């Protein structure tokens, strides 16, 4: 696992904290790594923290959607947190489709939402 992403397990959740801008192959590694971990143990929620990403383009958006789909297949909910204001504006102007994805402001919020879902 590249040092650019830290994945922590907390209760029945996985928290993936992206530490810096990722190359395309690193994004795919993250997706595959999460897919593998979801398979290994009982996971109820995944939180992907994108605070450190100052660009979210179509490739990243697609990978995030794929993570959510893979998670859903295993009965887990995915929440994206930490989208920065300028990145949010860019994504909307770009017309990136993130509709199927749930978002929250930060990790605290996301964990709270995952807790309520039970």
């Amino acid at each position, binding site marked *: 696992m590249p040092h650019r992403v830290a994945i922590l397990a907390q209760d029945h959740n996985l928290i993936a904290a992206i530490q810096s*801008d*990722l*190359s*395309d*192959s690193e994004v795919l590694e993250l997706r595959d790594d999460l897919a593998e971990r979801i398979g290994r143990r009982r996971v109820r929620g995944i939180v992907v923290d994108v605070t450190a990403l*100052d*660009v*979210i*383009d*179509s*490739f990243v958006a697609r990978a995030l959607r794929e993570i959510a789909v893979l998670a859903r297949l295993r009965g887990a909910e995915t929440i994206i947190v930490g989208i920065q*204001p*300028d*990145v949010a*504006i*860019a994504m909307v*102007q*770009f*017309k*990136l489709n993130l509709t199927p994805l749930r978002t929250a402001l930060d990790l605290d919020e996301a964990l709270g939402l995952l807790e309520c879902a039970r």
Partner: protein
Amino acid sequence: MTHEVLVAIESDGDLVEARAAARALATRLGFSRTDATLIATAISEVARNIIVHVGTGRIMMSPLEEEMRCGLQVVAEDKGAGIRDVEAALHDGYAGRGGLGLGLSGAKRLMDDFDIDTKMDRGTRVTMTKWRFRDELERMKEKRQRRP
């Protein structure tokens, strides 16, 4: 004075460099944080297009200084097979090779000027520019600095 920035696009690691270079230049030219993000995102898309469809190419970013406004021009070039149907490529949801549609149409939405010059078997050049307007304060300062 700021000169043009050239980034070779050969591997996916170069996209990271291109995004960072775009942001740095945009900031240096006085663009807002949001505009810098729009520019970096647009560059990410066209650079990826080069990697996916051709494999190698380059991106040149240069400042366009005018009295009333300041621009950041991006020229993304490759010597690939060319885009057969530009109209379709700009259409949302276009799959092309690799299924990465949305790239060009999204980049066009983020930038102010957008042009594609493509010739079959000769290559493609995408030229896109983002502008910001200079207010009176900045214009006065420019004039003062230009005086010897």
